């Protein structure tokens, strides 16, 4: 299968089974954790795994959670996440996790068992065409048909997963292959004539970009998940500081620029801050870094393009450039390298003064709207308040995972992330149920860290079985359940766009979450009074060794504001009644 050249690690090779080769490959890659679930097709691999002590295997309760946990481990550490699942249903259960990682460009290697080679295509027990099923949601995938191909394939899988625009890679291995014997030779390097990501940005384009930035009257820096994944935060901060330009982050990009810094104007997009969206719409020079102008970020692309501005776009993936919005200065390359080049060129410029005083006055006027203000209540818990207090109690240093819905937006709006890789959520696919397994992945990445899973009662029930995994490994995660007894975001849209017809958005028959947590040996708490929120959070985080499930009964009618409705332009936000009353003049 392999036409490229490989050099062997050493000359004294050792014969072993395919299963042992798989294990040895993972150890060669210095994998620390493999999240998985055994089954028929991977029994040889599990037997080999039993006899090694290089990496630790984490037994989840559902394969979807294995992939999510590996995904979060990768997001938190920057390393490639690894999951191991069996054939058939094990493989299909993993698909949601793989698609989630694919949409957010997370480097994963997912090893799936397959029925023995002679049984492929025979509709064998637990057979599914894994390569076929995952093709649209992986960066690449492989079906290994010979034992000698296992090592070079796994080497390639790791290489492909983590280079260029990262993404998940599936390696499907038939059971008989894992019993066959071959010499173990792990290639040192990978050379693929069909795959060579561009890393260094074009110097002419970079110089042009710096000139444009220096000439800007109304500049804006907009960064996404690519900045975080490309480890370019430090370079971006240097650039933004040197220029004194405003910075906004996408949902995926939070933490890429410190949220407590005065140049940060908040998250932009459908539920972005007023100042971020207005500045994005009205800027004259836009520097986009590792972001892709997606529908949740710029709203209606026609409306966005209706305003004239010069766009500079740095991205490692050429296909992300000029996809939804025409770009004037495309720079293909690794964000860290390109930003470092920009900082250097900027330093050599003689005239570095920018004239942005009027622009900052305008931004500060927009800030005056205080679009994230909400009405505090002393009778019912406001979900925003819980997130604000969580930020205070954890000193803004926790790993925060979320599920998908209103709570996700409140987490993104009210927890101020000062560091990259601390905010872990499913931005692209929007997968409910990621929160708890994501928290597991973060806690394995950093066992002493504070890990909070902000979730809703809908989402948490989609992978609630992982409470058992958390018990098995003693993970001291804190679940912050913002329980409004509704599928909140669905309810909000039904209120706004379907005349309050709350079709199937009420979660009836909820479990007693306190008892449920306790049944796994965790601590359960229910908080119903706003006055108890802070104390309860402090109490929970003081229990450094325990998993605490905090069930906050929150305001059922609370909505997420600001909001750019579907099909609307960025500057056509709907504000909360409170912020809306402060708005003077035009939007």
């Amino acid at each position, binding site marked *: *299968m392999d*036409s490229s050249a490989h050099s062997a690690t050493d000359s004294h090779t050792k014969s072993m089974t395919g299963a042992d080769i798989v294990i040895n490959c993972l150890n060669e890659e210095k994998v620390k954790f493999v999240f998985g679930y055994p089954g028929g097709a991977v029994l040889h691999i599990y037997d080999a795994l039993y006899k090694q002590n290089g990496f630790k295997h984490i037994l989840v309760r559902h394969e979807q959670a294995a992939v999510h946990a590996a995904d979060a481990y990768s997001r938190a550490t920057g390393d490639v996440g690894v999951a191991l699942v069996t054939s058939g249903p094990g493989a299909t259960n993993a698909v949601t996790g793989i698609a989630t990682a694919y949409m957010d460009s997370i480097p994963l290697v997912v090893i799936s068992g397959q029925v023995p080679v002679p049984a492929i295509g025979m509709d064998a027990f637990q057979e599914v065409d894994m*390569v*076929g099923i995952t*093709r*649209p949601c992986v*960066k*690449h995938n492989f*079906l290994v048909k010979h034992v000698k191909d296992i090592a070079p394939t796994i080497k390639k899988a790791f290489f*492909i997963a983590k280079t260029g625009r990262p993404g998940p890679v599936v390696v499907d291995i038939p059971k008989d292959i894992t019993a066959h014997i071959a010499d173990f030779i792990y290639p040192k390097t990978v050379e*693929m*004539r*069909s*795959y060579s990501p561009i890393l260094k940005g074009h110097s002419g384009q970079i110089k042009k970009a710096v000139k444009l930035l220096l000439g800007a009257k109304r500049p804006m820096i907009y960064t996404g998940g690519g900045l975080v994944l490309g480890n370019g935060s430090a370079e971006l901060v240097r650039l933004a500081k040197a220029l004194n330009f405003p910075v906004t982050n996408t949902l995926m990009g939070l933490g890429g620029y410190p949220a407590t810094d005065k140049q940060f104007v908040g998250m932009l997009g459908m539920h972005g801050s007023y100042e971020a969206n207005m500045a994005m719409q009205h800027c004259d020079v836009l520097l986009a870094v590792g972001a892709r102008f997606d529908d949740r970020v710029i709203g209606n692309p026609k409306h966005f393009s209706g305003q004239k501005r010069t766009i500079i776009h740095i991205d490692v*993936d*050429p*296909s992300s450039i*000029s*996809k939804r919005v025409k770009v004037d200065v495309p720079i293909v390359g690794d964000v860290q390298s390109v930003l470092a080049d920009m900082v250097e060129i900027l330093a050599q410029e003689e005239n570095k003064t920018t004239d942005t005083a009027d622009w900052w006055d305008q931004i500060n006027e927009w800030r005056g709207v205080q679009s994230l203000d909400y009405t505090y209540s002393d009778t019912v818990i406001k979900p925003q308040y819980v997130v604000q207090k969580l930020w205070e109690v954890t000193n803004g240093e926790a790993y925060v995972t979320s599920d998908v819905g209103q709570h996700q937006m409140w987490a993104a709006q009210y927890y101020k992330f000062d560091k990259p890789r601390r905010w872990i959520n499913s931005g692209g696919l929007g997968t409910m149920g990621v929160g708890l397994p994501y928290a597991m992945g973060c806690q394995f990445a950093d066992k002493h860290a504070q890990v909070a899973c902000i979730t809703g009662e809908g989402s948490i029930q989609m992978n609630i079985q992982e409470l058992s995994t958390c018990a098995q490994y003693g993970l001291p995660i804190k679940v912050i359940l913002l329980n409004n007894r509704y599928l909140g975001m669905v309810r909000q849209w039904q209120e706004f766009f379907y005349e309050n017809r709350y079709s199937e958005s009420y979660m009836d028959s909820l479990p007693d979450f306190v008892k449920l947590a306790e049944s796994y040996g965790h601590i359960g708490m229910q908080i119903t009074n706003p006055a108890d929120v802070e104390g309860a959070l402090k109490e929970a985080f003081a229990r450094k060794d325990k998993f605490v499930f905090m069930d906050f009964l929150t305001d059922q009618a609370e909505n997420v504001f600001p909001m750019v409705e579907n099909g609307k332009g960025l500057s056509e936000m709907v504000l909360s009644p409170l912020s809306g009353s402060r708005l003077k003049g035009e939007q």
Partner: protein
Amino acid sequence: MRHIISLLMENEAGALSRVAGLFSARGYNIESLTVAVTEDPTLSRMTIVTTGSDDVIEQIIKQLNKLIDVVKVLDLNDGKHIERELMLVKVKATGVYKDEMKRMCDIFRGRIIDVADNSYTIELTGSCSKLDAFIEAIDRSAILETVRTGASGIGRGDRILKV
């Protein structure tokens, strides 16, 4: 606009379905798609005929380049090129059709490659539009069967797509 895209890809199982899957997943048109191995047995060459605005074509090229198995992509419409397609047409060869089909075949520089009691099979190569023209030119009710390979394309002169 109609574009002919040529690409070289690793001759591996599943490579074709990656390309076909990309087109269907992203809603791109495929007018025709042909693929076969090249003189280098590790490489396959594919010709895809598609239509789309300039923006769509740009995305198609970028997305094709992103596929791990794809080694090189060339939009033949970026320069001078030649396009050929092979068609086999089985037509009625009874009564007046007997001479008529022979004459049309000659006009279009086709060849009759099979003669049966009541039919001819005509082989015709040319650009897609030439093959279309042949179909237009003959009596539709005389056509028993057609099979077309889809277009293959190659750049003129020094325009070479090679690894």
